[in-house]
């Protein structure tokens, strides 16, 4: 029988924060919420307080010299979580400015003790702590005073069984000065908020620098502040898949693409749970293929989700897609929010996938997606994309992504990011010139662990969608963009014609 103490973990009420904290907030812990002005410290504190406080487990919110309480109340009540009915019932705001104004920390502490004894709070917030530090300056050794104050406060709150938060601005970064600051060593938890500014984009980030006894998720996690308060985007893949993969199996091993003959070319459809990249130049029909993929899903009673970064939903040029979204068979993720992070996109997609129990997901297109990301995330786009694909595939869905590909006839590339290896299947679309006309060809380049066609087939697009035609057997050098009619002699050559050789023969003809 174990006699070890069990540490309760409190659900903070902030979406995503519990995951980042490694399972919630340890009860009776002594925490610091730090960061520069305007990064959301007070909002985070309020959001947790309104989520956690109950009449039986009330919260005390001490305001010190920082933000005038009137203003704090004025602005905080704009958030959805602010419920004024809880004020003076389960939440008590207490202003300490009169006690702190003469800089006597003992008096501040006494006042806190008196209020704690009067209210028996389960949660205590002191905002802003920096102003306590400032108030203590000028009286002997501020460092000693402060250390004593923090240690006494920490001990007091723990023995009173109160989970405590000191909210403050701490400009010191990392280990350099952290050890010198007694507050940071006494604290059980350090929640550090930052704002990362690059060009004219701003991204909010949170780091759990310390949380005793918990496997927190390391690194910087983006968050956004909206009318509902903070939303933290835990790294893609951190949240365990909620869905049972067996559900997917019951739907059959392969999905149909919704384009006649394409399934045959892929060896009988796209294996379920695969990710497929549709690469091609602008206007080649990638979005139409994506819509057909979703429409086929709807026909088979499967729901889908599409993330669109290019087209405004109000003027979706694709009528088929608009109808699917209208009918509710396809969910639309269309974040117009600036400065997106990959984790935020993943969260938006997962929410929609879970809401609709979707099995097909389309991202149209990766190129526009990259542009929608905040500049700070573009550097590791490849890595981010891998996390995105892994998170979606881990959810059990089948993913189709389109990628804008500049036609280059000197090499054969499938994505501008070198991301082709990430996907399980690749469909390539290209323009070719035949008889003074632009024509389109399509090939299934890759289907992992499956036989597939090696044909390069012409296709056309009309109101009905994509029609895959025949191979242009009488032409060769299609991938070079300027095919030539095969000569009798070349027919007898081996099937694979080296690009370079073909080009050179072509030039010879020109000459």
């Amino acid at each position, binding site marked *: 029988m174990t006699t070890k103490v069990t540490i309760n973990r409190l659900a903070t009420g902030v979406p995503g924060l519990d995951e980042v904290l490694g399972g919630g907030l340890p009860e009776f812990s002594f925490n610091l919420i730090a960061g520069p002005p305007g990064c959301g410290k007070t909002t985070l504190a309020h959001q947790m307080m309104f989520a956690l406080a109950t009449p039986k487990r009330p919260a005390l919110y001490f*305001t010190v010299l920082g933000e*005038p*309480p*009137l203003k704090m*109340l*004025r602005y905080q*009540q704009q958030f959805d979580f602010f419920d*004024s*009915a809880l*004020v*003076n019932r389960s939440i*008590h*705001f*207490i*202003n300490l*400015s*009169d006690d702190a104004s003469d800089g006597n920390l003992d008096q501040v502490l006494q006042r806190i003790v008196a209020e704690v004894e009067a209210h028996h709070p389960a949660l205590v917030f002191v905002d802003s702590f920096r102003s306590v530090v400032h108030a203590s300056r000028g009286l002997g050794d501020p460092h000693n005073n402060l250390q004593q104050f923090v240690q006494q406060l920490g001990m007091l709150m723990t023995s009173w069984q109160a989970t405590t938060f000191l909210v403050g601005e701490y400009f010191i970064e990392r280990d350099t000065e952290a050890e010198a600051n007694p507050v940071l060593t006494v604290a059980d938890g350090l929640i550090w908020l930052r704002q990362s500014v690059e060009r004219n984009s701003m991204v909010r980030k949170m780091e759990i620098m310390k949380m005793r006894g918990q496997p927190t998720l390391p690194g910087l996690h983006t968050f956004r502040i909206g009318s509902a308060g903070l939303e933290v985007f835990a790294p893609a893949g951190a949240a365990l898949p909620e869905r049972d993969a067996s559900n997917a199996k019951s739907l059959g091993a392969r999905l149909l693409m919704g384009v006649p003959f394409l399934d045959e070319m892929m060896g009988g459809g796209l294996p379920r749970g695969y990710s497929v990249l549709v690469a091609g130049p602008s206007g080649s029909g990638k979005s139409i293929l994506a819509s057909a993929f979703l429409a086929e899903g709807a026909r088979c009673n499967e729901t889908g989700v599409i993330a669109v970064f290019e087209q405004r939903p109000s003027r979706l040029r694709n009528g088929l897609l608009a109808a699917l979204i209208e009918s509710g068979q396809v969910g639309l993720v269309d974040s117009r929010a600036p400065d997106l992070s990959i984790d935020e996109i993943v969260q938006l997609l997962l929410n929609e996938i879970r809401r609709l129990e979707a099995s097909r997901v389309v991202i149209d297109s990766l190129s526009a997606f990259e542009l929608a990301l905040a500049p700070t995330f573009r550097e590791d786009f490849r890595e981010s994309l891998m996390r995105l694909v892994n998170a979606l595939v881990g959810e059990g869905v089948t993913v189709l992504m389109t990628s804008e590909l500049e036609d280059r006839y000197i090499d054969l590339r499938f994505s501008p990011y070198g991301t082709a290896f990430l996907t399980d299947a690749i469909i390539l679309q290209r323009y070719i010139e035949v008889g003074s006309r632009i024509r389109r060809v399509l090939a299934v380049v890759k289907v992992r662990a499956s036989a597939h066609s090696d044909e390069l087939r012409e296709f056309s697009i009309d109101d009905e969608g994509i029609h895959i035609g025949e191979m242009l057997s009488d032409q060769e050098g299609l991938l070079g963009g300027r095919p030539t009619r095969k000569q009798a002699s070349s027919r007898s050559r081996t099937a694979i014609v080296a690009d370079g050789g073909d080009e050179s023969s072509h030039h010879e003809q020109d000459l």
Partner: protein
Amino acid sequence: MVSAWQGIEAALSPVIGQRGVAMLYKRSLYLVAPSHPWLTGMHEGVQSSIDLDALKSVFAQQHAAIAAVAGGAFLQTFCELLTSLIGASLTERLLRPVWAHFSSGPPAQDTPP
């Protein structure tokens, strides 16, 4: 009326500080003075806390009916000022204990249903 102000101070100063209450009190006096010229200039004396003795003595010099009207207007101005800053529901929530002590109820104001 003095006990109403005592109640207000007791209810608000823990939340927004004595100084915060005094500033609102001062501003309300300033706003209400044009309609009650005998209050003119009184706001200038308000420092970091409210002086109810001074208020009492100024009001005592007036006819009871005049003092009652002005006193009501002053309270109402204060409540409206607070409402404009932190909203009706929070104002009502914070000042509830004050009105609970008075059978006369709160001064006329736009309280939400």
